[in-house]
């Protein structure tokens, strides 16, 4: 079976752990428990009669990519970069962060995700997306599960 390492990156508190918890366990908690180091979760996805094993690495958020141990990213097949739609600090330096990632992981697909969409109105989300200098692939809510399944399915589909 196809096994793929997917890493979640992004600043602290943007909802990486929550997205994975929602996706793998259909659970959500308002409480913020920061992640330290890495926790790996596994989920099997069916894409067009093929199974893909997603090995999802939930990596502790830092304020800069340079602080993440390089071995966490080693051999990753896809990156999901998460930011918090409600916190400008999590997307203001996105270009720089994504550049750093592409240096370490050349030619690896990076999915850009704005999370916590449940906290904003549609037009506000549009405004923020317009401000982000790179294409935002998904606007998710780990709370309502909006677009969460779509996100990981798209990641898996890319491997097939």
């Amino acid at each position, binding site marked *: 079976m196809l096994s793929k390492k997917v890493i979640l990156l992004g600043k*602290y*508190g943007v909802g990486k752990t929550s997205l994975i918890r929602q996706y793998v366990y259909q659970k959500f908690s308002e409480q*913020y428990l*920061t992640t*330290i*180091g*890495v926790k*790996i979760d596994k989920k099997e996805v069916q894409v067009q009669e093929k199974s893909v094993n997603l090995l999802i690495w939930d990596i502790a958020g830092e304020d800069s990519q340079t602080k993440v141990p390089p071995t966490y990213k080693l051999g990753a097949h896809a990156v999901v970069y998460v930011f918090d739609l409600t916190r400008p600090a999590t997307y203001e330096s996105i270009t720089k962060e994504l550049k750093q990632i592409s240096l370490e992981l050349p030619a690896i697909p990076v999915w850009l995700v704005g999370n916590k969409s449940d906290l904003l109105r549609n037009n506000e989300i549009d405004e923020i997306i317009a401000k982000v200098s790179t294409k935002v692939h998904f606007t998710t809510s780990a709370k309502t599960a909006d677009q969460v399944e779509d996100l990981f399915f798209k990641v898996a589909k890319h491997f097939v």
Partner: protein
Amino acid sequence: MLNDVKANFLKASAHFIVFDQDGHCLESEGQLISPNLLKGNLFENFSFLESNRELLSLMMLHDSYSFPCMNVQLEQSKEAYCDFTLQKVLWQRQEANLWMVHDQTEMYLRIMQLQQDRNEKAISGEFFEMKQRALNAERDLLKFKNEELKRQQEFKTQFYARLSHELRTPLHSISGLSTLLSEKQKAHQQAKYLNALQATSRHLLSIVNNVIDFSRIETGKMTWQAEPTALKDLIEEVIASFRYKAEEKRIEIKVTYAEDFPLTAQLDATKLKQILFNLIGNAVKFTDRGYVLLEAALTDKDQEFIELTVIDTGPGIAKEKEQDLFKPYVQLSNNGHVGSGLGLSIVKQLCDLSGGNITYIRPESGSGVTFRVTLPYLLPEKQIDKPSEELPLESHIQKMLIADDDEINCQVLVTYCKKYNIEAEAVSTGKQAIEKLMSNSYDLLILDYYMPNMDGLETLKALKKKELHQKKPVFMLTGSMSPTIKEEVLSAGVKKVIVKPIQPDALIELIRFDVPTDQSGINLDYLYKISDGNALLIKELIKKFLDTVPSDFAKIKQHQDGKDPFALQKMLHKSKINMKYVGMQGAFEKMEKLEETLSSGNVPVNLKLQISDLEKQVNAAVIKLKAEFKSL
């Protein structure tokens, strides 16, 4: 012995596993990972190893990678934080993988607490910073508003100083010129002084108007009032008034019209004039070489707006001043040209008022200024006839009365009207006006609003009571134009309110356009007189007219070929009395004359034309009388 202690100590917190390429455990030293999990395929049992399978296949002997702080479940429901190391080793002379697991849970849990604390603080710091940013933005805005207010305040102070200067200059020259005029002078000298006097007073008037307009716009008292306007004439008039100045400065002033530009349209003529006067005035003022061009067109797309572009070849506007262009109290140039600093601001506000706009177009190269104004317009329901340039005035206003205590104003108007063959009389009080009207009939009455003892409105009311000057137009002159007064005056039946000082030309224009020509020529005064104001009787007579005259005329038309002059004469004779009742004196006389001719057996060559003329009048009268009938 010590080796054993060391080994035991390590066993408690570390585990070493050697496994092959396929994930089979070859050797294990430690107690952290349960032997069960080590029995099967390690890649299947440990996501960490599965994730790194590719990496392991690529590693060379002695290569080593460490993975700090891996969150794993080593036993059921017991979470642990371990440092992992993967290394390529030789095991029994074969290449194998070594996985070192070092449990550091205690330390990492402490680190976790610290990190949690740091992150939470950092996040709330972000929100604080966002708030701060919002506050800063708010403060900047306030600061800007303050500065803007201060600037306006300062300018107002300066402005009033300058304004008094501006007002005093023409006033001085007016007083000087009038002194000169009062002395004995040669005729040509006198004419020259008079010209200068007129020009100066017009200038003074325009300054005062600007100031008043601005304050009215500022207080929201101005509205856009669309009315049928001879558009091209208006433009030509404005251009013409700058011709002299342009010639003097040796610059050209021209205007071009797009093919589809309407001759007439419904819009607010006064305000359009003001807009053009300001823009073209500025253009002429600032241009010392080259030309001033006005392009008149319609907007490309939907043609819902007229588009007037004023282009000059003057020095242009400095880039840093562009943003302040339409702000009040901004002086655009420092090169000796003075103005109130209100002109463009007024233009902008007038454009906004209309639902259109004004834009400044920066020149692509070189200097010069281009302003484009778009204004909404409607095509008039009825095209206005172009006023003929020749005298005499073809109007049904032949005789008019002016009541104004300003004798000079009266004199000017009377003289001017004479030029147009209008017989005008002037009185100076409301009482005198009433007296005049008791014994005379006038086609138009012009009343001044402010007159001693009895003002214009009171005079009008008294006239109504006395049933004088009924159904005939009244214009009212006024110095101020408070909307409430205007409303009161208009609802009292005044046809037009004219702001003083009135330009004689404008008055003639008004007489031409604003007193609708009543083709029917009916005059119900007669009807009212003979019926003694008895509404029932009036109604009866009108009904008779409506019942009989149209059918009479249908018959009259049957005889318009003149083959049976006597039948026609009979018909005319029968019908003409109806004309008399409703005051259609003209029609009555025409019919009488025609009857006379016919009775002598003669048929006039233009019989058909005469009848169709009469018919036109009758048709117009029918419409008016029907309305009158309803209102009784």
